[in-house]
Structures are given as structure tokens and as C-alpha cells.
């Protein structure tokens, strides 16, 4: 206990000191090439049986839609090259091991939402082996967290290069009560407690801060069941997190929601402050939601801001 406390004390001092240092690059401010979110529709595939039968593998080989939210505010519409691989090892953040990777898509696009269909469950690697089986072989937990296949998107534009790894989850009903995940969706946003429509840019003026909130999502957070490490059923409830982005200024928090280990959930409330000295301009906002089990989606909003 003493050692734990000692480490905790050091950590606390470190965090307190970090709070005194203010890096220039803020996570909520998008100003160059970034991948803000990736989702698959369906967010996970679940077979009807855990027996490794051809039927079960066929169920896991269904087509899903891959979506990525690319932003490049300074790119002025320049082309962005992309490549999407699936590979076997989560620790291989760039899918660099050629023998264990499968090319799913590649091409050129521009900033915005990149969408295409993929069938990662059907992907095969050297020796005509299903990539799913290779993923399972690499998994130290032997599939107790599902088969988590890394999907690595590489995007490049100019001299900027980003690798974005998303885990695609394949399940089977290991314990009773397991059901497929439903994609999380933000029901709506509000600014200073006024609904923020998707279609019409909001008129904002002044230095702010402007309070941005999400409509209540608590009734959409699913209760679900996963296999425990002792092969028993563990009951969990989602605690969504929302990441906030803006093309001007910053949010006071870059991420809201989620739960700490005491089960205390955060509220989805942020304050947006325009950059000091900025001129009147159109501002784009993004809110990316994650459900903590692989599901994700996003909403975009526009505003016309003047000082």
C-alpha cells in the first residue's frame, strides 16, 4: 500500500505541475490534417454460435460500412491519399507486418466524410488463413474481449501523415444475454440552452464563452453483457463520451462524459471561446460520440460568428 501511495503522490504532483504548463496545440482546435472519428456500421458483428463453423464465419464476414471523418482546414481542398488495412496485432499501430495485413481500400479523397463498404471478417492472409483466426492467435485474452481486429487508416496530404487505428469487434454469445451493439447517436446540440439546428448556421457574436451542451443521452446508453475473465456474465452500462472540436478558438474541455472507476458520470457541457482578435467568420463544430465498446458517430454544426 505504501508503494502505491508513493506512486500516487508522485503522480499527483506531476498532474498538478502539468496543469501549470499550457501547450499551444489544443485538441479541440482543428487547424490541420486530422482524423476526428472512425466508425463502422454495424459497430460490431456477432455470430449466432461460438462454434467455429463455416456458418459462424459467414455471419462474421458480413459487409459493413466504414466511415472516417477527415478534416483539413488549412488544406484548401487539397487531395488526401488514403489506405485502409486490416491486420492481426493491436500493438502493430501502422499494420506494418505485411504477412499479417490485408489491404481493404485505398484511393484519394478530400476533407469530409470518407465512406466505403468493407468485409474485414472475410479477409484472408498468407496461407489463405482467415485474418480473424490470426487476430485470435495474437490475442493474449483468447477472445474474451471479442475478436478485436485493428483497422488502420493511413492518410497523407503534403508532408502530413496520420495513422488512425480502429478496432472492429467480432463477437459470439459466450455468455447469456449478449446482444449486438447499437451505434450511439447524439440526439442534438444546444447553444446557451437553445437548440442548434443541423441545417442552419447559428448566428453568434461576442467573446463568449458560449455554453454548448448535448441533448440528454442517458436513455440511449445501453446496458449490456460481456463475458468475464472467469467466464461469468458481467453486466455493464455504457457511459458515452463526446469529443468536441471547432475550427476557431477552443473548447474548455476537449472531451466530456464517460465514467470514472467509482461510476461517476460526466455531463456533456462545454464552453466555446473564439480565438482572441479573430475576424468574423464561419465556424464548423464537430461532436464525436463513443459508446466505449466500439460504437461511434458524429454530428457537425455551423455557426456564423462575429466579434
Amino acid at each position, binding site marked *: 500500500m505504501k508503494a502505491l501511495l*508513493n506512486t500516487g503522490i508522485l503522480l499527483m504532483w506531476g498532474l498538478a505541475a502539468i496543469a501549470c504548463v499550457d*501547450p499551444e*496545440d489544443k485538441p479541440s482546435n482543428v487547424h490541420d490534417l486530422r482524423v476526428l472519428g472512425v466508425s463502422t456500421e454495424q459497430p460490431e458483428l456477432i455470430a449466432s454460435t461460438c462454434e467455429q463453423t463455416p456458418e459462424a464465419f459467414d455471419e462474421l464476414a458480413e459487409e459493413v460500412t466504414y466511415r472516417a471523418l477527415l478534416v483539413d482546414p488549412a488544406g484548401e481542398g487539397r487531395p488526401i491519399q488514403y489506405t485502409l488495412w486490416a491486420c492481426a496485432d493491436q500493438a502493430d499501430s501502422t499494420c506494418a507486418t505485411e504477412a499479417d495485413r490485408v489491404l481493404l481500400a485505398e484511393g484519394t479523397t478530400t476533407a469530409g466524410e470518407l465512406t466505403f463498404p468493407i468485409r474485414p471478417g472475410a479477409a484472408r492472409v498468407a496461407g489463405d488463413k482467415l485474418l480473424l483466426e490470426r487476430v485470435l492467435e495474437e490475442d493474449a485474452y483468447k477472445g474474451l474481449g*471479442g475478436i478485436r481486429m485493428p483497422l488502420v487508416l493511413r492518410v497523407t496530404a503534403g508532408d502530413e501523415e496520420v495513422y488512425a487505428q480502429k478496432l472492429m469487434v467480432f463477437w459470439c454469445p459466450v455468455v447469456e444475454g449478449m446482444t449486438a451493439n447499437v451505434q450511439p447517436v447524439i440526439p442534438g446540440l444546444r447553444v446557451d440552452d437553445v437548440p442548434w439546428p443541423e441545417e442552419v448556421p447559428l448566428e453568434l457574436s461576442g467573446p463568449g464563452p458560449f455554453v454548448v451542451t448535448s441533448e440528454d443521452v442517458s436513455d440511449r446508453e445501453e446496458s449490456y453483457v460481456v463475458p468475464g*475473465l472467469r*467466464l461469468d456474465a458481467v453486466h455493464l452500462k455504457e457511459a458515452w463520451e463526446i469529443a468536441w472540436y471547432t475550427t476557431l478558438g477552443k473548447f474548455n474541455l476537449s472531451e466530456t462524459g464517460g465514467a470514472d*472507476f*467509482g461510476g461517476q458520470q460526466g455531463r456533456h457541457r462545454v464552453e466555446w471561446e473564439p480565438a482572441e482578435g479573430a475576424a468574423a467568420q464561419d465556424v464548423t463544430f464537430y461532436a464525436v460520440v*463513443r459508446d466505449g465498446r466500439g460504437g461511434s458517430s458524429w454530428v457537425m454544426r455551423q455557426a456564423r460568428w462575429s466579434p
Partner: protein
Amino acid sequence: MSPNLNARCALAAASLLLGSPALAQAPQDGAPPAEAAPSAQAQPVITKPPELLQQVEAAYPPEALAEGVTASVRLIITIGADGAVTDVLPTEPAGHGFDEAAIAAVRQFRFSPAEVDGVPAPVQVEYVYHFTLNAPQPEAPGPEQQAPAARKATLKGQLISRGSRSRVAGATVRCGDDPEAPEALSDEEGRFSLEVSPGECAVRVVASGYQLYQTKELLQEDETTEVNFYLAPKGGALETVVRSERPKKEVVRRTITRQEAQRTPGTFGDPIRVIQTLPGVARAPFISGQLIVRGSNPGQTATMMDGVGIPLLFHLLGGPSVVNAEFIDQLDFFPGGYASQYGRAVGGIVEVGTRKGAADTLHGSVKVDLLDAGFFLEAPVTDGVSVAAAARRSYIDTLLPAVLPKNEGSTLSVVPKYWDYQLRVDFGAKRGANTEEEARARAGGARSTGYVMAFGSDDQLRLVSSGPETERDLTVDTHTLFHRIKGDWTYSKGNFTSVFTPYVGYDGTSFKFGSAKQDGSSYTVGAREVLGLELSPTFSVRTGLDLVFEHQTFDVEFPAPENFEYVAFPGAESVGELLVEHIGLGSFDGALFVEAELKAGKFVFTPGLRANYQRAGDARNVALDPRLWVAFNATERTQLKGSLGLYSQPGETFRFIPLPYGNPELSYQRAFQSSLGVEHRLTDVFNVDVTGFFNRRFSNIVAPGQLLSLPGGGVFQVPYSNDGIGRALGLEVMVKKQRASATDKWSGWLSYTFSQSLDGRAGPLPEGRGGFGGFGPTGDDTAYGLSPFDQTHILTLVSSYVLGNGWELGGRFRYTTGRPTTPLNHTYDLYQVDRNRFSGVYGPYASARMSGFHQLDVRVDKSWQFQSWTLGLYLDVQNIYNAENTEFTFNDYRQRREYEVPGIPILPVVGVKGSF
């Protein structure tokens, strides 16, 4: 007029204080018999002061005589165990040939042997030799002038130290400067009785460590005049003028006195933080008091109070240590190579020796500083029984509301508070006898002393943050406390010594965080018995048992924690179902140790063996720790020394709870320690020690361990494993200057360590990478490399100077090499989408370092002495030139750029202390 030559001397007061490392090259020939416990908790006590048996008059220097010059020569006399004078050194040269004359005379003195803990032992006393010129003898009176009978008056009284009310023993009281006049010597209570002729008495009181006291009293014939004289102490607070040498069983033992513990600049008067200024101890980040000793990790150095482990060393959030500086007598620090009676540590040992209550009268102090206020009291209760007590409480909880931000829509409440206490009752000293000899004779030559001590600490922290404008409603409630009660019975008869130390304890922890709750309690019962026997002047043995039993229970309510109950998906943590557990576990750790000391010429060999047995839950562990210490006393002032041995540390009891929260398979953490050094006493006040060391740690406990497949299915990650390894080598230099006397104004030390320490795991990094040895992640697959705490050069200079008139100025300068870092090598962004975090691309592990650390701390003390008490005020300024030292580096969110986290800026702290 022919001057009448006379030289007189007076034996100065002999207040005995404890030995210092500067004088610790124990002359082995005269050392006491095998001490049962030569540690800080077994403080040697002078049981019989030396008495001057044979005095030799000094020759008055002719030139001084011709010039009519007088002088007082202050000397430090080293008296051997046989009563012979072995060394004489003047503390302040008087010139005019007085020093040489006094030394020549004193060398011929003969004393009765002093006794420490009942056995003859070498001691040092301060001695003032007065050279005075007598007035010419009046002509012999005629028969008609002769008084028929001597008339008498009596002056009785007590000598009291001004500002502290301590009784002044061993002082001489006389009327006038006539060397032939009768004089009285004050007893232990400071009382004296002087019979002189009636009339005006020009009182002169001479006492070691005090200014000459002069006053006039009109004494009536056949009457007794009662007085109290308040003597003003000389110099600063350090009044250590007489030292006893404790036999040194370890290669390196560094001792911090109470004065040093309270007044070392930059430590806020915290005794544990003073240890960080010693060789072998790496600098801990910020103002943390972590002890990182010879490459070991925090938590691998045991800290004990009078032989009983302190379960929690620091108050809230790395605040002050639970060791109240007022209550300590001194601290012994063993960076390695310690004796077989010490165990349960693979790093160093810190032994806090507590303070015995005053035997003369009630004393005490009250101290107030930025964080807390406390008091200390000590007093004799009855004959042979004394008590000392201290307590401290923080008041940050009352100040914080004034500085916390207040916003509409949110409430923030932070209530931290802590308190601690120490209580010690000593008994057995003399018990009705007038002298130690009488007490011992009554007991048939045996001597028993003992004490009962209690100490404890309590820390509470409550943090509540709520309201619609906060990120989340947050409640944290923690409460940790411990209490220990120990006894100590020391029995000695002839060459046999026994020290028995039983103790019991209770620890409580309570933690609430949202819906997570944990209430833990731990009961401890332990005992230590150490037997020492001197079989011959060249051979002695020491043996004993060191047992401790703990029973811990935990009531836990937690939302199912990820990776313990299920495989977590990266990213947002879900809310788990509430788990309710009651866990109880007992553990026993026992050790049998034996140690012999064999003197062969100038060599002293001390082989030892400590056999450890641990039983925790289903675990059964055994570890044998053979150790050897060899010393070669090259000269009276120089000693070569070396040691090697094995050391063991059991895992804490809670680590043995069943999977997945503990690992019942854990075994002892082990270490091999070796050292080789030389210690040389340059003068009586200057000491230098150079020691090289090489340590290897193995089977150390790290977290987490590897994944484990269960026979019936399922997989666990073992939370702890014995995969930790480490290695450290280095060289330590310590040069220390002590105050020779109360009038010596300067003291301090230079501490330098050159070292390299490696840390890591014997196998591959576990799933999730986990901790690297005792600390953070590596960032790559490296499992063994430079310790995160490695500092090649560690230099500390500590100095204190008594300016006079109650002023004292101190400074501490530190330089250390920056800690290793793994440099960022960004070439592209690595975005973990599910986690919404970026991973870094790094260069080779620990291939860079932070910039070096340098800092100067300054402390100014001012004290005002009143008749019965002393008021002290201090200003302790950390980092006085506001150096911007880097404590950590962290990266921006995309892991593109490193940012340096600065350390503590200039930080002044003011405190007030009143003592009586």
C-alpha cells in the same frame, strides 16, 4: 610586588549527548561489550560521569606572567575507557603559551572511568582551564587581629538555563576571583550550597556552555540566602559538548541530530527530508520526501521509530512526515550493509530514535507554521520516571475555504486534515537510589530500564465538487490512520544485555469515490528480542528474534473494474455492476538472526545470518540472508571497512489476496548488497567518509505480472509478480564538520554521490506493458534499463553559521544530474480512434536526460531568550534564486512536442516556535 602564581581549573559540566558519525570510529579496544541493539532506539546513556582523580597544575607561561595576562583555555578532553586522557584539543586558541601549558598539564590528568549504559566507555568532556593572577598576600595579621572564630553565611540556590529552564549541573559557584576562596559545584538538579564569610559576595558562576555569570549578594552572618541564577547559554542552539561513542556495527551509518533535523534549510524542519541530503539518496521530484536509496525504488527503504515500522511515512499528498521533529532524539540512516538484526528491506534503513523525557523539570515547546501547529512536553513524573509527549494538527482545512474559487453553478469543497502524536514514558532509571552504582548494587549488579511508547497518525481528505457547471459531480473521501504501542525493556548484567521490544498496532483505511467504497483494517502484533553477550574482550555474539503478525480485512464495494473482471475495450469506461466483497487475510513474518564480532589485531570481523520465514495466505516463503562486515582500524583515526550480504523484503500482506486482485504466489524480494570504504577523522570535528557500493536486486515485486490462463478457462493478468530486477553501483563521499563546542559557530556537510542504477524486469513486458520495475512505462519493448530515478551526480552542501545575538543562518545547495528520459521522435501521428488518444513515436529508451537540477535554499533563525522561555522565528526559503528546474516532461496531445514541467519556484515559509 611579586605576583602569586596560581593556576586553577574547573571541571566543566558534562552533559552527555549522543555520538556523531564524526567520532564514530569506535576505538575498538575500549568499546563497550556487545550491545544488544546499537540502533537509534537504544540510545547509550552515561550512567557514571568521569571524575577528576589526579589534577596537575599547569606552568604559568612566563611571558604572559610578565605581561600580567590571564586566560581561560577551553579544551575537549577525550577520556579512554580506563580513565586515561587519550587526546586533548583546544576549541579556541588562547595564545600567549596558555594552550600549550594547559594541554601539557591536562595530558597528565587522571579520571575515574566513565560508564555508558553501565560499562566503562570512552567519552569526551569539555574542560576549562583558568589561568588567573592572585592579588599579593596581605601581611600576616597580628595576634590581636586574628578572629576568635570563623563567621559563616550560606548561599544556596539553583542554576537554571535562561530560556529553557534546564538545570545546570557541574557549574562552579564562588565569591570573588580569589583562587583560594571556597567554591561549590552544582548537582544534577543545578543546586548548590556555598559557605562563605558574611558580607558582600561578588558571585561568579562558571559553567560549560554558558556565559560567565556575575552578580552581588549581601550575605548575613549565620543566615542562609536562597537564590535562583539564570545562566545565559553561549553560542547557538547546538550545545553538544560531550559525546559518547556508540560502537558502529555497520559499514555506513549516517546520523542526523535533532538540531540538524529541525534546522536544515529547505526541508521545512522535516527529519525524513533531511535524509535526502545524505550520500546514496537520490533527489526525489518536487518536494516529495521519497527515499530512493542506492538505486532501490521508493518503498524499498524501511523507516522505523524505535525499532517499529512506520506504516505510513508522510501525511496527505506528500506533506510533512509523520515523524515530529520535536520528538526525535536523532535519526540513523543506513544506506546499505546493515546488521542482521535489520530486515524487511532491500534498500536502506532509517531508524528514528525518540526522545526521552527530561529528568530535571517540565519543558516544552509550541510550534506554528504554514501547515500545522504542534506542541512538545517533557517532564519527570516521579523518581526514575519521565514522560515526553508531542502532538500536531494541520489547519489547512480552515484556511482553504478562503482561497478556493467560488462560482455560481458549482461548489467546490476540499477538506484535508491530519494529526499525529507521540508519547513516551521512561522508567527504571535509579529507582530510588542516589547513584547508578547504588541502583545496580541493589539489583545484584543488574540494570533494568525501559519505556512504553505510543505513536500514531490520522489523515483525512474530503473533496466534493458539484453543480450544473462542473464537468461531473465528484466525491472523494479518504481516511487513513495508524496507531502503534510499543514497549522496550533493556536488561544488562555483566557482559550480558537483553532488549525486548513488543508492539501492537492498528491501521485503518477508508476510501470512497462515487459508488466505490473500501474499508480496510489491519491489526499487527510483533516483538523483537535481541540478546548480546561478550564472551571475551575479542569475541562477542548477538542473536535474536524479529516476529510480526498481521491480519487485514477489507470490505469492498466497487463497480466491476475493467481488466480485473472483464477485458476492457479501449476508450470510454462503462459503468460496471456493483461488486461486494469481504476479504480477510493473515500473514506472519519471522526472522531469527545471529551475529558474531571477532577482533583480531586491527581487524574486526562481523559475520551474521538472518533466516526469514513468511506465511501469507497459502504462501510459504523462506529466505536466508548471510552477511559479513569487516573493518580494519589502520590508525586511531582511520578505518577501512567493507561489507557484503543478502537482504530480503516480504510483499505487503494485501498483495497476497486471491486472484485477480492479488497474487498468493509471491515470494521475498531479494537484494545483494556490497560496499567498500574508508573513514578518516581529520580532526575531532572534521570527518570524511568515502564508500563505494554495488547492489543487485532480484525477485522484486512489480505490477502487473504476466497473463495466466486458468485450468477451467478464463484468463487473468496477475496483478503483481516477482519479475523485478535492478542493479546499482556508485561512490559516496561525506565530509562533515561539527561544532566543537557551544562557541563554535560553523557546522555543515558536503555530500556527493556518483552512481548508476538500472531497473526493470527479468522477463518480457507484460500485456499492456505495465509498470517498468517500480515506476512508469517504457514506451517500447525495453524491459531493463536505466532507472527512472537514476542521477549520475548528486551533490549537496549544507551549512549553518551562528551569527550571534540569537541569529543563525543556514543554506543548502543541491546539484543533481537530470533524470533519464526517452526522447520523442515524431515523424507521423498515431491516432488510437477508440481511445481518442495519440500514441507517441519514441527514440531508444532512456537515451536522453532532463537538464541538471540546481537549487539553493536558505534559512534564517532568530531567537529571543527570556527568563523562562525562548521565542524562535524562522524563515525557510526554498529555491531562493528561483531556478527553473525541470521535474518532468510531458507531450502535447498529438505526441509531437515535449514540454518541460517546472519544479517548485521560490517558496518562503515562516514558522514560530516557543520553548521553555
